[in-house]
């Protein structure tokens, strides 16, 4: 605690360490929540520039929630409640080469379904789910990141999984 009193975000070293610690999570959070179209990278930049401008007012332990809230607000200002367009990464990394055309077609079909199903999830569900499945984060980490309880994270992720499977079957 004492240390925090003396540490100041206005110092470049401190600022950089905060950036290194949180920027990737923030970026992923924005990406899974709002999709790619709204330039999550830019929002991360903007949020951290704002953090720098307010470095005297924000204590280091508040920095994470500051940038998350700021970036989220920046996004919301821009989306203005337009329907979120999700363009998740389409090119699948080629793990194996011995695919026959039929398999490829099925694969593509499945892919499309998955994409639509993901778009149907709520923002909260999608963020938690993707962080867990794709980024490999555990429930507890996600809970910390989003500032909610582990139980709530589990509920969101489980719910997302069930909904996805149901949607994929139906599509």
């Amino acid at each position: 605690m004492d240390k925090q009193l003396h540490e100041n975000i206005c110092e470049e070293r401190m600022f950089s360490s905060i950036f290194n610690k949180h920027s990737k999570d923030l970026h992923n959070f924005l990406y899974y929540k709002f999709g790619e179209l709204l330039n999550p990278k830019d929002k991360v930049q903007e949020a951290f520039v704002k953090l720098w401008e307010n470095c005297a007012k924000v204590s280091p332990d508040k920095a994470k929630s500051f940038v998350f809230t700021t970036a989220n607000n920046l996004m919301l200002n821009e989306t203005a409640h337009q329907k979120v367009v999700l363009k998740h990464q389409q090119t699948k990394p080629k793990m194996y080469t011995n695919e026959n055309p039929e398999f490829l077609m099925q694969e593509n079909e499945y892919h499309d379904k998955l994409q639509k199903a993901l778009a149907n999830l709520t923002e909260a569900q999608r963020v938690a789910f993707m962080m867990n499945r794709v980024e490999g984060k555990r429930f507890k980490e996600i809970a910390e990141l989003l500032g909610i309880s582990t139980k709530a994270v589990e509920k969101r992720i489980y719910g997302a999984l069930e909904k996805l499977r149901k949607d994929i079957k139906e599509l």
Partner: protein
Amino acid sequence: MDRDILISKWLDNDLNDQELEVFKALEDYDDLVKLNQGLQAFKVDDYNTSEELDTVLNTIKSNKKQSTQWFKPFMRVAAILAVCFSLYYYTTTLDTTITTEFAQKTTIKLPDASNVSLNAKSILTFNKKDWKHNREVELDGEAFFKVAKGSSFKVKTKTGLVTVYGTQFNVKQWDNYFEVICYEGLVGVHYNSQETKLNPGDSFLIIDGKIIAKEKENRSQPSWLSNESTFKSSPYKTVIAEFERQYGVRITLVNIDSDQLFTGSFAHDNMDVAIKAITLPLRVTYSKTNNTIILKRE
């Protein structure tokens, strides 16, 4: 073990070996793995933290928000100071001008304790700021100077430049009339790039561009300082002009030669006596209406 819990644990990467076996035996195991693999395709582009950090730091530095925080108020203060200073500078370096109106006389103390008496309807200009280095006044009209000792003292007039080596002298400069009388010390008069030095009692007179010789002055100071205008063989028009300045009236001459010479004086405190003083010797009659006096020769 319950299927839901198993899946939850799988999601949280919290399965132990035993549970993993049970989980693998679940009927939807394949489905889940397939889904999981499919999801990997939606992974975020590689996010290069250090690259992004560099960009942010560059943005911050180019913004220079830090510096503008003190720069703006600083500029405000600086601007106010600049305005104040220039105003101060302007007012202190401004020439001081003293003007007298009709029938008004005044005495001015110059910055070095020299005295200037200014006769009616005259203008004296000098610069306070530069006084130490440059004792110079500009005169339009008539003034009597009592100059304190020091470096040279100059009086600039339209007609000529008067340099003072001594202490007391009178300068009179009206249209086509320029007269310097030295009462004490030594005075130099530059006229047409020629310097004439005047000793006490000497005078220098130019009327209509001609230098006119005058006899020695034996007073200790000009008569106007004791509220009297004295003339010795002066053209009548200069007498009239002086009268106009002292009483603030307009005089019209009818049938009178304005170039004829006049010797005499008039007082500044009684107009009726004064008008008699300048009319009787020439046998001229006068009539007065408001501010206009008409002089007529029968």
